[in-house]
Every structure is written in structure tokens, then in C-alpha cells.
């Protein structure tokens, strides 16, 4: 199977099929969000133009922006833009500087509103950096604890993994965030906590997130390592004369890595899409904070843009995970 051209054919088939599925998913998500945003009460134009603007001005702006057209028409127009990489413009934010919600209706800088694409492109790297660091922290703890726990079922390493997982899972993230900020930042002054002025600002929120996801990684590892160590091929390997180290490293861990990989994919997607609370607590300028503000300000184009970008990211992560998993365990191809 993985011999010669067969593998290339498989990869190409796989990518094309999965990308096509991905496009459909992203399209459906967009349509859902788009429709929801337009049927919930509240007129964003009123927010944009300011409470003082006369009704005819509001109507005029709305008309100009096409907001009075039927939803499908608006959607088609919007998606036409998306296909060309244009996610539209923020209702609220100017091209530079902070949000200007509630600005005066005759403010002539209003046409200089920020591109949604730029807003996302500016914040996404921060979230990506946070997610990667959180993942790294979580793995540094989960790998040794989980693997060792799985190799010694019922013994103290197993119990350590269990207790550690239960402890981590019972800590609420907002509480942990505040405590860590108070202790490490305010009292000890070791790490900066609020805002972002350099890489060090990522560490505290990453620790909080790592504590949040580590229990799942530990659990998955202990279970799948222990399960693989009970497999026939492991005990047979010893009889075949293969050393214990190699049995664990090259076989048990390799087999246990597939479920872990799937879990990592899911966790990573969650980190990209929804670290709302943690970014909010630490005032960390990532996608989470951007989302919160966009929602509070009813900045529809921005909410939509974020939804499309994150769902596209989910799709890509998923494809990568499945591709790697199939390379590790070729049975998945069938």
C-alpha cells in the first residue's frame, strides 16, 4: 500500500476529499452565523452612527451598506467577497486606533473603517502563540505523568496521574488566573500579567490554559498506554527477544500516540477558537478578546470573519491530525 505511487495517490485523494468537505463545512458555518446575526434584535447601524443620528441618516447608511437587502442576497454578496479574500469592514473600528463605537454620525473618518481581515491577521498570531505555548506546557507535564501512569497501572504513578488530573480539573480557570496573577506577578514580580508588551506576557495565561487541558491529555495517555501494554504483541515481543525499553518506546508509545493526537487536535482547536475567559482576564490581545469586543459591540462583519477563520482553522487542524494519524497507523486508511 504505502509502496511507490500508491501512497501519493492516497494522499492526493485524501486531501482533495477532505478539503472539499472542509469548504462545505466552512460555508455552512458562515451561513448559519450570518443568518443568526441578522435575525437577532438590535440594529448595528444605530450603534455605528450613534444614538443622536436621525432616522433618515440611519436608513441611508443601512441602504448604502446593503443591510436592507434580503438575507440571501447579502450572504451571496458577502461570500463573493470572502472568496476574493475580502472579509468586509468592521462596523465600528477605524482603520487605526481603538474602537470608535458611538462616534458622531457626521464624523467623516467613518469611511476609513478597519478591514476585518487585518484585524484578524493582527490578533491571530497572539492567540496562536498562546495556544502553542499552552500546549507545550501541558505536554511537558502530561507526557511523563501520563506515560508513567500507564506503565504502572494500579501503582503510585497511576495514582499520581489520577490525583493530578482531578486536582487540575477542579480548578476554575478564572480563579486560577487571578491567583497566579496575584502571586507570580503582583507579589513576586516574576512575570508580567496584564496586556501584552512582549513574549513574557504569554506565559501566565498559557499556564492557566495548560492546567485546563493537561487532565485530558494525562487521562488519554494513561488509558491508552496501559491498554497497549496489555496487547498481545507487547508480551510476544519480549518472547521474541526485544528489549523492554524498545518495546515501550517504539511500540507501546507509538500505538498510544494516535488517540493522543486526536485529542491534541480537538484541544488545539478549542484553544484557537475559545480562550475567551483567559484572554479577557489577562487582557491578552488575541482572537478571544477580539471576539468578546466584537460581540459586545455588535460588530457583525468582525464576528462573521472570526467565525469563518476559526472554522477554517478547525478544518485544517483536523485534516493534519488525520493525515498524521494515518501515517502512524495505516489501518486507519481502510
Amino acid at each position, binding site marked *: 500500500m504505502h509502496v511507490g505511487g500508491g501512497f501519493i495517490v492516497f494522499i492526493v485523494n485524501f486531501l482533495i476529499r477532505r478539503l472539499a468537505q472542509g469548504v462545505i463545512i466552512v460555508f455552512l458555518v458562515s451561513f448559519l452565523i450570518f443568518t443568526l446575526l441578522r435575525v437577532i434584535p438590535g440594529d448595528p447601524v444605530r450603534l455605528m452612527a450613534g444614538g443622536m443620528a436621525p432616522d433618515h441618516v440611519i436608513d441611508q447608511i443601512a441602504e448604502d451598506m446593503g443591510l436592507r437587502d434580503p438575507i440571501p442576497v447579502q450572504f451571496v454578496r458577502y461570500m463573493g467577497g470572502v472568496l476574493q479574500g475580502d472579509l468586509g469592514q468592521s462596523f465600528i473600528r477605524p482603520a487605526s486606533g481603538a474602537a470608535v463605537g458611538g462616534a458622531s454620525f457626521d464624523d467623516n473618518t467613518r469611511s476609513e473603517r478597519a478591514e476585518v481581515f487585518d484585524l484578524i491577521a493582527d490578533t491571530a498570531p497572539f492567540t496562536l502563540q498562546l495556544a502553542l505555548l499552552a500546549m507545550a506546557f501541558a505536554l511537558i507535564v502530561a507526557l511523563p505523568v501520563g506515560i508513567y501512569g500507564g506503565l504502572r497501572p494500579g501503582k503510585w504513578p497511576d495514582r499520581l496521574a489520577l490525583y493530578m488530573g482531578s486536582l487540575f480539573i477542579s480548578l476554575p480557570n478564572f480563579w486560577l488566573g487571578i491567583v497566579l496573577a496575584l502571586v507570580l506577578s503582583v507579589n513576586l514580580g516574576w512575570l508580567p500579567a496584564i496586556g501584552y508588551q512582549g513574549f513574557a506576557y504569554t506565559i501566565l495565561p498559557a499556564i492557566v490554559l495548560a492546567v485546563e487541558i493537561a487532565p485530558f491529555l494525562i487521562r488519554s495517555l494513561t488509558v491508552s498506554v496501559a491498554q497497549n501494554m496489555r496487547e498481545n*504483541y507487547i508480551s510476544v515481543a519480549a*518472547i521474541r*527477544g*526485544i528489549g523492554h525499553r524498545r518495546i515501550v518506546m517504539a511500540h507501546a508509545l507509538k500505538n498510544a500516540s494516535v488517540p493522543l493526537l486526536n485529542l491534541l487536535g480537538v484541544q488545539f482547536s478549542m484553544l484557537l477558537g475559545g480562550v475567551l475567559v483567559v484572554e479577557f482576564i489577562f487582557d491578552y490581545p488575541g482572537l478571544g478578546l477580539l471576539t468578546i469586543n466584537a460581540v459586545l459591540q455588535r460588530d457583525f462583519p468582525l464576528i462573521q470573519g472570526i467565525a469563518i477563520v476559526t472554522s477554517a482553522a478547525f478544518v485544517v487542524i483536523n485534516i493534519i491530525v488525520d493525515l498524521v494519524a494515518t501515517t502512524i497507523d495505516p489501518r486507519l486508511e481502510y
Partner: protein
Amino acid sequence: MGTPLLDVSNLTVAVGEGASAPRVLTDISFTLEPRGILGVIGGSGAGKSVLAKAIINWLESPLRVVTGKVMFEGRDILTMSDRETRLLRGKAIGYVGGNPSGALDPTMTVGAQIVEKLQAVEPGTSYRKAQERVVALLDAVRIPSSDQRFNEYPFQYSGGMMQRAMIVDALVSNPRLIVADSITQPLDVTVGAQILKLLRELRDEFDTSILFVSNSLPTVADVSDRVIVLDRGIAVEQQPTADLITSPRSAETRQLIDELPTLWAHDDRSRLKPASEDARPIMSVRDVSRNYALASRGLLNFGPKRILQAVRHVDFDIYEGENFGIVGESGCGKSTLTRLLTALEPPDTGQITFEGKDIFGRGKEGTRAFRRRMQLVLQDPYNSLPPRNSIGTIIGEPLVIHGLASRKERRSRVLEVMAEVGLPASLYEELPMVLTAGQRQRVNVGRALILEPRLMLMDETLSALGQTEQGQLLDLLEKLQAQHGVTYLYISHDIAMVRRVCARVAVMYLGEVVELAENETLFFNPGHPYSRALLSAAPTLESRRYRSEDCLLDGEPPSPIDLPSGCAFASRCPQAFDRCLIENPRLQSRGGLNRAACHLLDSENTVPKEVSA
């Protein structure tokens, strides 16, 4: 002779600690010379596997060596350090178990894992060198296109091929001793026979000694120079093979020999009832086919869909009250046919009627009613019973599913059935854990019987049982048939059992019925070369009517995907000729109820003639 390679003396193994711990091996002593093949035979639970594991010092708690020595080339394996044992294991002693599936890491290619093993026990071997050696050995055990197979994963191997790969794995380090525990048990007789042949060749070629463990006396007798008979952990007899068979000394050995079903000699225990043409068919299978479409392998899934033809134009009748058998190698379509006959899947074309009615013709209700009158009794007595339900609940469950009896009626009905299948009423509240293999099978039979079916389909039901238990179960089934007039359909790869009970037999190969014959005709005058190959491979102590040298071909059936035109057996048929490659032979009558599909029959006049032994 010099010092023996292996010298086991006074080996006693117990389960658990303490002087009163039950013994599973008692005072076993034997020696194995270089180049010798020593057979170990015994019923299930006799201690064969424990003995095999003790020899490689692989006993896991609660098993414990009480006394004894296992001297290998003058050193006691049982007192070696872990390190020494490990060096000995992969290198000097190879072990092959009876369960090749799951014996290798599913995520690595078979070749890479054998190379890994060789490099582990012979550090410093280059990958290239190791690979060359593995491919050469894969060739030696007749794995076709070995250099391609080297790069395939375990799940791409059939059971027979995997067993051969495990033999290569054991051989690759040129061990002085191979311990083979039940290696032919999971295999088809044809493949098993090939493996036995291979072992003998290996001994001749590589001077390997072999400890061959099996529960089948004919199989052990086939390969071994000497045989030890184990019974409940005691070596009751030890003799050169020929002497053991002609003049057994112990009662246990004599019983083993007497219980063996015979293929050609007259057998008093034969349960055959002659087939008759005037009997009424209870089930008719008319030109039934079943295909599965597989994804194409081309770019973007373009290109022709690949079709797997699992069952092809199968056509037969099963008569009321008879025993009908279906035999064939694994992968020949038996399981698919079982699913069709039990209405789990409809056929693509053709029709299956039961008591005159199409089993799919009357909607869901009709199918449900049919399923009550036709019951499937499954194979694998160790895994099919839910471990946490009481035996009474398990047997009564079909009544609940079909909503047939109130709670009170159910209990009395279950007890009635338990009595009928020979299970003591005291087992009603017990869990399946306490049952022996034979009793488990009785539970399965009782579960089917409770719905008072007209037809019972036995899918490899008896193949996991030892000879004694199998005989008892056959007695039971016969009794039930006499009382209730049930019809049995046996699906099996056990030719000897089919010989004993089935009046008519269908032989399947690659989805087709290639021969449909009455018992005597099939065994004494088979009409199809494949039937002869099956007969030549069946384990037996009798002198064979068909020698495997003439009838048995190497290899395995071709893939049922994209079958070539012509006779499907042509690639392995010793008698194939030009026409076979072009034209698929049709089933033709050979007189009476006998039919076979082979072009050679055109020259044989339809009157069956006697074939010399």
C-alpha cells in the same frame, strides 16, 4: 548421541503459593535431541501451553515452578537472570504461539518488525543484511511475492500467512530450538498441512529441533519423531510416534486414538443418515450471489469500482431433517453465505426460500418470524456469552426478544431446555465463568433451541472443542434431532466432523459451490480437484486415499476481487489445462444428488467410477 539439546527433569508447576496449590504440571521429564521433533499432545487444559511457556521461562504469576530443571545446552533456564533469558529467547530458542493475529505491532510492517527482532538479538547486523535474510526466509516459507509482502502491515496478512511470518520471525536468528504451541489450530487444513510440511523441511535444512504442541493427534503424529501424552498435567506416556499409535501403553492414549473420527475406515460412531431425493426441502437457495463494491484505487476515485464477489451463483436445497454441511477454506464465502441464510443481509440476485416462502418476501414481520424458525449457533464459545448475565438469563433471552413468554413461564421453559441440553439446573443462577468449553457450547445450543426452531445453523460451533467434548455434543444434537425433527446445517472447516455427521456436503471455493455431493461420494469419489486437495490435507492417522504430494498445491486462494475468467481454482489446480483458463466450468450432475464443477468431468462418463486408493 551426545548431550541432549533440551533436558527437562521433574518439572512441577502449581497455580499460586503454598504446598496445597493445585498442580498444573506434575513431575514432567523428557529430553529433546538435536534435530529431533518432539510432539506434545493432550486435551484442552492438559497443561500443554504451560509446559511450552515453562521451557522459555515465561510463566507469569500465579503460575509458579515448584520443582524441576529445564536444562538447555547444559544450563538451567529457570535459574537464569532476566538478561540471560532474554538473550536466549529470541536468539537460541524461537517461540511460535497459536494466535498469530495480534502477535505483531499493527502499525509497523511485518518485514521491519522481523528485522527489528534480528537486530535486537544479533546487534551489529546491518538493515540491508537483515532484510535480505528475512526476504529469503519469507520465500522459504512460501509467502508469495515476498519482497512486496515484506513491506506490508500485519492486517494485510491472512491468518495462514501471518502464522508463516511468525515462523520466519522465530527462525530468523537460526535458533537451535523452536517451541511451537498449537500453531496449526487456527488455520485451514490446507494451510496447516503446508505448515507441517514446512517444519519438516526446516528441520532437514537448518537442523532446528522442534517441540511441537497440539491437541490433534494426527497433526502431532504427522510431524513428530517422539510423542509425549499429557493428561491433567501428568505425562502418561512417551514413545516414538509409530509405536505410540500401534501399541499405546496408557488408557489415555488409547482413548485419544479411539475417539479420532475416521475419514475412510468404517466408523461405528458415524451418525450418517442416507440422503434421499424424495425428502421435502426445508430451505432452497436459488442462484444466490452477493457482491461488495470497494472504493476504486485510482486518482480522485475515478476508474472502475472494484467488485468483491463474495458469493457467486450458489444453488442448493436442504432437506427436512437432514444434516447438511458446507466446507471450504476461510475466505471462501462461508460467512457471507451464513449472513444471507440467516436473513441478516439480502442477496444481490437469487432467492432463498424457507418452508416454501421467500425469507425476504414478507417484510420485517416475515423476516422476524423466519429468524425464530431458523437459529444460528455461533462459534467461539469463549467470547460469545455475556460474562455478567446468569446462565438462566442468557438461555431465556431469546424468549424476551421475541416476546414469547411471561416471566414465570420463562423460568420453567429455560429449566426444561437446560435439562434437554444436559446442563444441571443448579447452573441457572451462575455466571458463564464457571462453565467448561463444552458447557458453554451447550448454553449456545440451549439458547437457540428454546425458540423451537426447525433449522439450526451451526457455524464452526464444534471446532474449538476437544475430541471428547465434540463427540458428546454431537450425541446431544442427534438426540435433539430425533425428538424435535430439527434440520442441521453445519458450516465448518473440520472435514472429519463433516464426514461423521453430514449426509450431504457442499464444497465452496472462492464464493462458488464447486462440488455438492453425498457423504460417501465426496470421500470416496470426489468430483472436483479442490475436494481432493481438502481431503489430502485433513489430519488423519489412516493411510490416505489422496496424497498431498499429488493434490495439495502451495499458496492460498486468489483475491475475490476482480476474479479472472475461467475456473477460479485454475491457479492452484494440479490438473488445470488450457480450457480451464478460458471457460468457467458449470456444476454438472454426476448422478443422483451429486454435482461438481470441473471440465475434467466431461471426459469422465457420468457414472461414478471407483478411484484406487
